[in-house]
C-alpha cells in the first residue's frame, strides 16, 4: 500500500509536469499579455522590449523549461496583470473558494444522498417523483441563471440575503474565513445554493440509480431476513455498496467545485480563485494561469488518490485484488 502511494506520488509529479506543459501550449491561444500590459499608447519598440523582457520571444521549450525550474522551487513569478506574487494571490483567494466549495459540497451531499436513498426506496410515489423532477431543474438550469434568479428574488425583491461578496471575514493565520461570522454565512447562502444545485441533482440521481440496483441483491434480502432495522439495511448495507461509483463522481465533482466555480464566483463577485482565473484568462496572465492550472491538477491528483484509497477502504475485494497482484 505504501508502495502504491509512493508510486502515485511519483505519477502525480508527472501529471503536474504534463499539465504545465499543456498549459504552456495553451497560452499561445489565449491572447497576448503584452497587449494588455502596455497602454494603448505604447510604441512598437516598447512592445518588443517588454516581450523580450518577459521572455515571450524565446522558443517555447526554453520558456517551459524556465517555468519548470521556477515552479520546482515553488516560484510562479508575478502576476502580469496584478503585479503581485502569484502564490500570494492564490493563497489569498484559496480560502474563499475552498469554503464555498466545501459548504456547497456538504449541502449537496447531505441533501443529495438521503434524497437519493429516499427516492430509490419510495420509487413511484408522488413525493419522490416530485423530487426527481425538481432535481432536473438543478441539472438543466445554467448556474448563471440560477444565480441571477436567486439574487433577483432574495436580494432585490425580498432583501433577505446580500447579493455579492463574502461579507465580514476573520483572519486565522493566513487563512481568512467567513465561516466564523454571521455576516459571512449570510453572504455564503446564495452562492452555496447556486453552486450546489447541480451537484445535488447529480448525486441524488446517481445514488438513486445505484440504490435501485443494490436493493435487488441477495445480501440486502438476507439482511432484511435477519430483521435488521431498515436504517441499517438501507444506509449500512445498501448505501455502502453504492459507494464505489458514487465516490468517484463525488470526488470528481468536489474537484470541479473547487476548480471551476468560476461562474458562481463571477455572479456573486465571490473573491475566490475562479474569479482570479477568469480575469487571468481575459488578460492572458500567463504566470497566473500556469500556477492556477498546476494547483487544480494537484487538487485533482490528491482527490483521485484519496478516492482510490477509499475504494480500498470501502471494498475489500479490491484490496485483495491489488495486494495479491494480478
Amino acid at each position, binding site marked *: 500500500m505504501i508502495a502504491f502511494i509512493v*508510486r502515485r506520488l511519483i*505519477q*502525480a509529479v*508527472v*501529471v503536474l509536469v*504534463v*499539465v504545465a506543459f*499543456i*498549459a504552456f501550449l*495553451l497560452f*499561445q*491561444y*489565449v491572447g497576448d499579455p503584452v497587449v494588455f500590459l502596455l497602454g494603448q499608447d505604447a510604441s512598437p519598440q516598447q512592445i518588443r522590449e517588454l516581450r523580450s523582457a518577459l521572455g515571450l520571444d524565446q522558443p517555447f521549450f526554453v520558456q517551459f523549461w524556465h517555468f519548470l525550474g521556477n515552479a520546482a522551487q515553488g516560484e510562479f513569478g508575478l502576476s502580469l496583470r496584478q503585479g503581485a506574487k502569484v502564490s500570494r494571490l492564490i493563497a489569498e483567494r484559496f480560502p474563499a473558494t475552498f469554503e464555498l466549495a466545501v459548504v456547497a459540497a456538504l449541502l449537496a451531499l447531505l441533501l443529495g444522498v438521503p434524497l437519493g436513498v429516499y427516492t430509490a426506496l419510495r420509487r413511484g410515489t408522488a413525493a419522490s417523483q416530485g423530487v*426527481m423532477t425538481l432535481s*432536473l*431543474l438543478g*441539472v*438543466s*438550469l*445554467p448556474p*448563471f*441563471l440560477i444565480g*441571477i*434568479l436567486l439574487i*433577483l428574488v432574495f436580494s432585490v425583491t425580498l432583501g433577505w440575503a446580500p447579493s455579492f461578496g463574502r461579507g465580514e471575514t476573520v483572519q486565522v493565520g493566513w487563512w481568512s474565513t467567513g465561516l466564523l461570522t454571521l455576516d459571512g454565512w449570510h453572504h455564503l447562502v446564495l452562492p452555496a445554493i447556486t453552486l450546489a444545485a*447541480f451537484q445535488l*441533482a*447529480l448525486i441524488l*440521481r446517481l445514488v438513486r*440509480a*445505484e440504490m*435501485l*440496483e443494490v436493493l*435487488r441483491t441477495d445480501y440486502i434480502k438476507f439482511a432484511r431476513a435477519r430483521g435488521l432495522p431498515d436504517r441499517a439495511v438501507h444506509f449500512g448495507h445498501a448505501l455502502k455498496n453504492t459507494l*464505489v*461509483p458514487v*465516490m*468517484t*463522481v463525488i470526488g*470528481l465533482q468536489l*474537484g*470541479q467545485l473547487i*476548480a*471551476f466555480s*468560476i*461562474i458562481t464566483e463571477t455572479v456573486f463577485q465571490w473573491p475566490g480563485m475562479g474569479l482570479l482565473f477568469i480575469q487571468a*484568462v481575459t488578460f492572458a496572465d500567463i504566470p497566473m494561469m500556469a500556477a492556477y*492550472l498546476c494547483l*487544480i*491538477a494537484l487538487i*485533482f*491528483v490528491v482527490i*483521485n488518490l484519496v478516492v*482510490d484509497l477509499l*475504494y480500498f477502504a470501502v*471494498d475489500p*475485494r*479490491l484490496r485483495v*485484488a491489488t495486494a495479491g497482484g*494480478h
Partner: protein
Amino acid sequence: MKAVLSRWFDGDVGYSFRTSPVAMLAAAIAFVCIFCAAFAELVAPHDPFDLVTLELGHARLKPSLEAHAMPNPQDAPRHYYLGTDDQGRDILSTIMYGARISLVVGLVSVLLSMLIGVGLGLLAGFRGGWIDGFLMRLCDVMLSFPPILVALLIAGVGRALFPNAHTSVAFGVLILAITLTGWVQYARTVRGSTLVERHKEYVQAARVTGVAPLRIMLRHVLPNVTGPVMVLATVQVATAIITEATLSFLGVGVPPTSPSLGTLIQVGNNYLFSGEWWITVFPAVMLILIVLSVNLLGDWLRDALNPKLR
C-alpha cells in the same frame, strides 16, 4: 428493417416502453423538440438566422398573439407569439433554430465523450496495471483543464490549420472541446465499477469459455456498469449545452448571429432585470424540456435494460 423494428417493439424494451406512460411522454417531448429543431425551416414562422429579414425596430417585443406591422409597408405583418430578442429575432423561431445547434452539440459531444470515456474506463478497470495507471493519470491531467481553455486551444489550432473556415470549424471545435473534457467522468466512473465487476464469477466463466478479453469487457462487463454512466450522460447533456453557450460567448463557438439555446439564455439573462424575461425564460423552458425528456428516457432505459427491474 421492419422486422427488426417490430422485434424490438415486441421485445422486453419495447414492451416496457409501451407500458410506461412516463417513457412515452418523454419520447413525445423529445420527438417534438427534435422535430422542431430538425425541420425548423418548415416549422418556424421566421428564419431568425437570415439577417435580411431582421427588423431592429422589432427588438424586445413582448410575447403576444397580435401581429406587428412591419416598418416597410410592402412586407406582411408578423406574429411574435413568444416575443422577440434584442435583435428583433422571433423567440419562437430562434428557439427552434437554436435547439438544432444545441441538440447537435449536446448530444454528439455527450455521445462521443461517453464512447471514449466508457471505453477507456473499461480498459483501465479491466486490464489494470500500467494501462490503468496511465489512463487514470491522463484523467488527472484532463480534469485540470476547464473546457474553456481546451476550447481555446483547439480553436487556436483549428484556426491555424483552416484559417478561412470559421463557422464550419466552430461546430467541430465545440464538440471536440466538450468531448475532450467530458470523457473523464465516464472513464473514472466506469473504471470504478469495472474494478468490482471483473472479479465476479460470470466474468471468470466467460474467460474459461475462451471469450477474448475485449469481448468480455464489452459484452459482459459493460452492461453491468452502465447504471451510473446513464445518469451522468443524461445529466451531462444539459451541461454540454450550457458549456456550448459559454464557449460561443468566448468566441470559439457559433457566431452571435445564429444563437443557440444556451446563447439565447445567456443573452436573455442580461434582460432579466429590465423586465424582458421572455428572452431567457422561453429558451430555458425549452432546455428544461429537452433535459427532462432525455433524463426521463435515460431513467426509463436504465430500468428497462435491467432485467431485474422488469
